[in-house]
C-alpha cells in the first residue's frame, strides 16, 4: 500500500510537472513571440502635398519682319505680317497682356518713321486681340492681346487646345515718294505680363 501511494504520488507529481511545463512553455512562447510581433508592426504616415501654381508668361517671335510695297506704282502701303507665339497662365482673379513697343526710330534716317507704322491683330487663339488699327510707338507699349482671368495655354479642358497660342500682326506703313530708296530697320519688343 505504501508503494502504491508512492507510485500514485509520483504520478501526480509527474502530472503536475507536465502542467507546469506547459504553462511555462506557453509563457516562454509568449515571451518570445512578443518581440516578433513588435518588430512587424505597420506604421502609416500622411503628408499634405501642395503646389503653388503661379501666373506664367512667355513669348517667342521670328527674328525679323520686313515691310515691302506690293507694286512699284505707289499703289499700296508697305506691308508685312508677323506671327507671335505666346504661352500664358493667369490667376482666377488676375489677367494679363501682350504688348509691343519699338525701341527706336528706323535707322538710317531718310525712310519711314516708326510712328508711321500701324498694325492690326487677328486670330488670337488665347485672349482678345487688339481691335482696329493700332499705332506703333517708341515711348509706350501698345496692346496686341489682352488676357482675362483664369486662362492658360495648352492641354485643352479649362485651357486652350493650342500650344503655343498665336496671334497674327499685320503691319503697314504708307508708301511715300519722299522716302529715299534703301533698307531701314528698328527693333520691336513684345512683352507678355500675367497676373
Amino acid at each position, binding site marked *: 500500500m505504501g508503494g502504491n501511494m508512492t507510485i500514485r504520488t509520483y504520478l501526480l507529481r509527474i502530472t503536475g510537472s507536465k502542467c507546469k511545463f506547459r504553462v511555462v512553455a506557453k509563457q516562454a512562447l509568449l515571451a518570445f513571440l512578443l518581440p516578433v510581433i513588435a518588430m512587424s508592426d505597420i506604421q502609416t504616415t500622411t503628408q499634405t502635398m501642395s503646389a503653388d501654381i503661379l*501666373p506664367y508668361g512667355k*513669348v517667342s517671335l521670328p527674328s525679323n519682319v520686313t515691310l515691302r510695297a506690293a507694286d512699284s506704282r505707289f499703289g499700296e502701303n508697305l506691308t508685312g505680317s508677323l506671327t507671335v507665339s505666346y504661352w500664358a497662365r493667369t490667376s482666377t482673379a488676375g489677367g494679363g497682356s501682350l504688348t509691343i513697343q519699338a525701341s527706336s526710330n*528706323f535707322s538710317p534716317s531718310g*525712310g519711314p518713321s516708326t510712328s508711321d507704322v500701324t498694325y492690326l491683330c487677328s486670330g488670337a487663339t488665347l485672349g482678345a486681340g487688339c481691335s482696329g488699327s493700332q499705332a506703333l510707338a517708341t515711348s509706350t507699349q501698345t496692346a496686341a492681346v489682352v488676357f482675362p482671368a483664369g486662362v492658360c495655354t495648352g492641354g485643352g479642358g479649362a485651357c486652350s487646345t493650342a500650344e503655343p497660342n498665336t496671334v497674327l500682326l499685320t503691319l503697314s506703313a504708307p508708301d511715300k*515718294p519722299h522716302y529715299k530708296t534703301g533698307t531701314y530697320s528698328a*527693333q520691336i519688343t513684345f512683352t507678355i505680363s500675367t497676373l
Partner: protein
Amino acid sequence: MKRNLVLTFAAATLAFVPMAFGADTSTLGVTVGPEASFTAVDATTTISKGDTAFGGYSGTTNFTYKIRTSQTTGTGNISVQVTTFGTGGPAVADLAYTCTAPSSGTACSSSTSASTSTTTSVVAFGADAHSADTGDSGTAAWTLVDRTAIKTGSYSSTATFTVSAT
C-alpha cells in the same frame, strides 16, 4: 507711429502679388525701292484752233505724277507716243509739244515732235528724285499745224504716256 508702421506693412504685403513677365525682340525692316505713277487729269485733250485762217491748233494735257528714283544711280522718265489721226486727218509729223514740270524733274527743253514709232521725252528724272507725297503736276502743251489738205471732220489720236523709275 506704430499704427503707421502697421499700415505700411499691410500695404507692402498686398503689393507682393505674383506676376510673370516675358519678352522677345524682332527686327522690323522696311525695304524702299524706286517707284513711279502717272495720272492724266482729263481723259481727253481737245486740240482746237483760235481762228479760221489756218492759224494752227493747240491744246494742253494736264497730268500728275509721283516719282522716287534710286539714291545714287537712279533715273526716271515720263514719255509719250501717239497714234495717227486717221485717213484724211492731220499728220503726226505736224504734231509737237512743249512741257512743264516742277523741280522734281526736267521738262523737255523745247518743242518736241510727236512720234508714232518711238516714245519721246516729256519729263526726265535723275538720281534720288522725289515728287511731293501727294504728287507733282506737269503739262504737255500740243500744237498742230493746220494744213489746207486736211479734210473737214473730227479726228483723234491716242497719246500714251509712260512713266518709269529705276
